[in-house]
């Protein structure tokens, strides 16, 4: 949360996150670049430029694979949520590694000719109608452009400027980039490999991404947020006893939005389930220091009015609530973001000691 835009709002956890990820990347590159040539002991070694290009290309693939595994892992087990916290930094790091890979390729395979190397990249192979021999470089270019767009718009300024829904759709480009990388590798280096260790790692990585997403989606389908029953234009949520102090119950509204009904010290309030920051699931968060706290990046809101505490300015819509025959009902029409709604007290509520 911030009242002004600064390049990075560092904190100890972000430093640690970046340190761990950077340590992984540095370890990969050091082992690939400096240790593996000794293990290979080729009489006529692979050209250093090709070796470097492979190191950075393979590293970018592993980084992308890890990045794309974090999302579903966090949905499957919330203990992985901290890995999501600073994932954008890791994404930007991946872009730089991918640029380095592209630079080595461009300055080796497409250099030393009379043609401009950027032009050569586009015209040297135009066999677009063939599968074997397809210009797989095109997939790499597409993936790199996607990564550049994602890195350039990764800052919160762009999220606010574009609005979170548009920003999230734009950043779904990561899936297209990954698919392009899979095609780039499959139609490129994998066509000529005799040793299949990389092939196994590559297919394993791609299957892990696909499998984890499929499993997380299946879990969502099986145990996802239920649609509330409509009763006289209001939506039934649950009994107050079903919501623990400091937590929420999420219901799907007829218009597709989700509402999070919180119990804060025996008083019920409802706000939108979508955080104003990245549309994180507020209802999966909890009340920390009297404020609803998003599980993704810790953005906080007063549950009675959907406003972040001063001096922060984020706001989410609120909803009117009522208790009918011991059942919480919510008005499906959202109030404008930041609208105060008087909390509904739970009759006879008393906190159960932990």
């Amino acid at each position, binding site marked *: 949360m911030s009242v002004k835009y600064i390049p990075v709002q560092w904190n100890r956890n972000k430093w640690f996150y970046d340190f761990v990820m950077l340590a992984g990347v540095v370890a990969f590159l050091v082992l690939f670049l400096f240790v593996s040539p000794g293990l290979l002991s080729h*009489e006529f070694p692979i050209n250093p430029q090709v070796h470097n290009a492979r190191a950075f290309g393979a590293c970018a693939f592993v980084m992308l694979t890890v990045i794309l595994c974090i999302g579903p892992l966090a949905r499957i087990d919330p203990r992985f949520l901290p890995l999501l916290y600073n994932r954008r930094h890791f994404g930007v790091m991946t872009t730089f590694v991918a640029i380095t890979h592209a630079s080595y390729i461009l300055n080796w395979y497409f250099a030393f000719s009379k043609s401009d190397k950027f032009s050569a990249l586009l015209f040297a192979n135009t066999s677009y109608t063939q599968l074997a*021999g397809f210009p797989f470089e095109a997939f790499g270019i597409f993936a790199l452009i996607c990564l550049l767009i994602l890195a350039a718009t990764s800052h919160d300024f762009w999220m606010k400027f574009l609005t979170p829904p548009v920003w999230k759709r734009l950043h779904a480009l990561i899936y297209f980039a990954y698919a392009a990388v899979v095609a780039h590798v499959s139609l490129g280096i994998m066509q000529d490999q005799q040793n299949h260790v990389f092939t196994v790692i590559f297919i394993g990585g791609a299957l892990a991404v696909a499998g984890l997403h499929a499993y997380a989606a299946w879990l969502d389908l099986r145990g996802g947020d239920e649609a509330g029953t409509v009763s006289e234009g209001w939506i039934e949520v649950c009994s107050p006893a079903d919501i623990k102090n400091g937590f929420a119950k999420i219901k799907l509204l007829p218009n597709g939005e989700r509402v999070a009904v919180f119990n804060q010290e025996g008083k019920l309030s409802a706000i939108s389930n979508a955080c104003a920051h990245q549309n994180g699931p507020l209802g999966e968060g909890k009340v920390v220091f009297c404020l609803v706290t998003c599980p993704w990046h810790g953005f906080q809101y007063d549950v009675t009015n959907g406003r972040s505490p001063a001096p922060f300015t984020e706001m989410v819509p609120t909803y009117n609530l009522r208790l009918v025959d011991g059942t919480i009902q919510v008005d499906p029409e959202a109030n404008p973001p930041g609208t105060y709604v008087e909390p509904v007290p739970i009759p006879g509520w008393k906190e159960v000691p932990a």
Partner: protein
Amino acid sequence: MSQEDKPFFVGYLDIPGPLRRFLLLACLAVVGIFVATGLLIGSTQDEPPASGFRFDYGRQTVTGVIELTPYPLLRVTQGNDLIKPGKTLMLSGQGKSGVDAQAMGLEGQLAEVSGIILQRGTIDMMQLAGGRRGLKMVEGDAPEMETEPLGRWKVAGEICDGKCLNGAMRPGRGLAHKACAALCLVGDVPPVFVSTQPIEGSDFMLITGPDGTTLPKAAYEHIGQFVSAEGDLERRGDLLVLKIDAETIEVIDG
């Protein structure tokens, strides 16, 4: 574990105690993935064939007769310890370029060439030094050079550029190398066909178009692929030259 007992991570607060051990293991797992993949992928790359620039031989200078196929060849008449008379050298310029311009007008003339040898088994090529140091006409009568027709052949294998195949790039052939090879061929580096079976004692040959033309552009589509092709074969010294008919090129499955 009930909902309220589950540790809740907030990025700007201290990590809850019960979550620390899990996150430590997750961090080790992430670093472990990078260590394992970096080491495994890096240390299991295919070994390129024994090929490359032979700087260890030093700069070589020999004399012979220039032949334009149209790719310039040197039929060596006065060799040295390494390059014997009777040898036929394919020639290339610096980078991805041939020496057509330098050799123009020298067909059938005696010339001295100087440069660095690229070698891969029995196939080799000379990358000429720049300017007149690389190729210059010399005084004297050029002997008549024999070209032996070997008839029409159908061959199976791969179209490559002769320079990368000889180790200018390692690896220097295959589908992943297609764009680089095409760029070399556009620059008039001599193209080579690598045959799956030895033909007349050689498993590679210089390829040209029919009737003294350069490799047809249609053949570029098939660089790096496993193909068959037909053409007239001839021997020039110790080098085979196949005049390929582009319309006979067929992709072979598998």
